[in-house]
């Protein structure tokens, strides 16, 4: 085991919180059960790390094995760092039939073609998602395992979730994805957030959406609005209507957890009295621990007007949380988002 492997392992252990260390290490197959039991999890982390290092040395583990530990932790706890989404477009016929084995091989081959020093590790998660860990180097340096890029992709779906990717490596990753997935091109979806599952639920439409139907079921959350007995009769119908509108715009039950929505405004003053020629630029940023829930509450409680403005309902309908609003289009910008 050389020093770089030790350094990487130290860093990985440092990043994993103490209370999750035991669980993560138990899933790591490269130390035996006996060795695992010999570890003292009540010890200080640095001591524990030293013990673990000696075990690894005993087992002659390499970088490949050590990075697997990091992958196990990231897969178990995906809500770290910021995830961006891109969409593969113009699928070829083969895109619907490509299997994971084939994809893995061809992705590795394509990436290695593009850049000399790169280390790729893939793991298929239980829910059919393919996790890819890429450590980038360049022509003269070895791959940097301290700052890996994580890519999550479900085959047969056009969405790719990326975390920790630099601008420099972006075209390389995109090209490898397009070629191995049999697509024509790739584009940015303008959706980002910390919670990977939320982004995925939003784009794959796995959260509970509400559609107007003939025989509506009772909405689950009927109680939260406080009521005054005197205005109840007049208010009930309006309140129900508002709830329905809010549910149709943002969904029902547990909503995908988004943290932000950014609207970039670029407009000109209509009456140009001030003699200003350059456009007025502004950024409106909504931030919340659960943005969709907050927006939904604004509508259902009557704080925001009831047919939800397309600007807000576009977050769920178009699956994006970054918008550029210009004068040309009346509603949403013309920067491309996911189709349909």
């Amino acid at each position, binding site marked *: 085991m050389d020093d770089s492997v030790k350094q990487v392992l130290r860093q990985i252990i440092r990043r994993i919180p103490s209370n999750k260390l035991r669980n993560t290490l138990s899933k790591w197959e490269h130390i035996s059960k006996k060795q695992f039991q010999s570890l003292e999890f009540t010890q200080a982390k640095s001591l524990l790390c030293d013990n673990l290092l000696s075990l690894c040395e005993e087992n002659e583990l390499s970088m490949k094995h050590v990075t697997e530990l990091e992958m196990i932790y990231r897969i178990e706890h995906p809500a770290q760092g910021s995830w961006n989404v891109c969409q593969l477009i113009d699928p070829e016929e083969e895109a619907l039939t490509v299997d994971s084995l084939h994809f893995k091989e061809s992705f590795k081959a394509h990436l290695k073609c593009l850049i000399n020093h790169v280390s790729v590790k893939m793991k298929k998660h239980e829910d059919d998602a393919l996790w890819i860990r890429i450590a980038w180097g360049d022509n003269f340096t070895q791959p940097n395992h301290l700052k890996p890029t994580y890519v999550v992709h479900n085959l*047969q779906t056009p969405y790719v979730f990326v975390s920790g990717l630099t601008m420099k490596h972006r075209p390389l990753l995109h090209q490898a994805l397009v070629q191995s997935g049999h697509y024509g091109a790739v584009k940015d979806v303008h959706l980002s957030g910390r919670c990977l599952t939320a982004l995925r639920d939003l784009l794959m439409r796995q959260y509970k959406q509400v559609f107007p139907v003939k025989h509506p079921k009772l909405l689950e959350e009927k109680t939260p609005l406080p009521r005054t007995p005197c205005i109840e009769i007049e208010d009930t119908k309006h309140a129900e209507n508002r709830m329905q509108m809010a549910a149709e715009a943002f969904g029902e039950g547990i909503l995908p957890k988004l943290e932000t929505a950014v609207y970039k405004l670029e407009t000109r003053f209509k009456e140009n009295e001030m003699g200003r020629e350059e456009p007025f630029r502004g950024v409106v940023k909504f931030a919340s621990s659960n943005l969709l829930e907050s927006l939904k509450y604004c509508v259902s409680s009557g704080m925001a007007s009831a047919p939800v403005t397309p600007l807000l309902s576009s977050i769920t309908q178009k699956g994006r949380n970054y918008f550029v609003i210009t004068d040309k289009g009346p509603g949403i910008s013309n920067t491309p988002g996911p189709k349909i």
Partner: protein
Amino acid sequence: MEEARECLREGVLNHLNVLETEALVLSRQQKLCLQQQSRVDDLRITVEKLRAHRDQLKARAKTTMSLQQLKAETDQRNEERYEDDNSEEGCSRTGQSLLSLLMVRRTRVKDLLQAHHLIGGYDVTETRRGKGVSISIATAFEGLYLETYCLELDLSRAVRICRHNIPPFIPLEKLAQVHLQTDLIGFLSTLSSHLNAFAGRRQQICLIQEVLQDSVEVMESNMLFNSVVLMCTDSGESRKAMLFTLVYSDLSRYLPTKVTIDSEDKVLPSTPQWKKSQSLLLWTPAHAAFQALKMEGQIA
């Protein structure tokens, strides 16, 4: 003048005092008068408004009544028509009866839609004051209802899908490009067959995992369930593991288009027995086929 002189005798100031009080009283009276007048005006406006509202309501009630009457009449007439074959002459083509006929047709179409929905067809609801519709497509496999998918269409200009909950691996965009503008029913039926086939394929795998969990193992499958690898053991003496690869290239069908069988024993897949089961898998849903193989004792 006499009065004034008398007053002057009493003093100028006193006289002014009297004048002032008189002026005050007068102005107060005037103000009261004005107030009453404006209140009367207000009340009059209210009365007018209420009257207009009453007239409107009356008119509405009248039209509803007459419509109901017309409907009853047409219903009766229809019944008569069923009883009596030559009723054509009895049907006078006035505007009102035409209207009622249209209404009858509308209710019939609504009933048909309802019936269609009850047997698993689409549920269509008008949204946004007639500018859009929300359509729900139910999926089922072997008589069991599975998920219902919905899509909302915007009909104001060209037909456009505004939102839906159809999973991303269903080629919705491609289907929409082909059919959506020209043939809505065609679009819905192809979409429905894709969704039903997907639900069917998934259900087959679920059933295999549930019912045949100790004899057939699902080695590999994907989100679209269009390529599935299954493993089971041959019941012969050598107990060879058999690997089945089912490929569904027609996404609107729940049956595979290609079945390949692999085994460590290269000869085994080409025996007539396994050849037969290969063709069985092409024509029967996977869970049923494997159940049959197990019943026959071909797999352990």
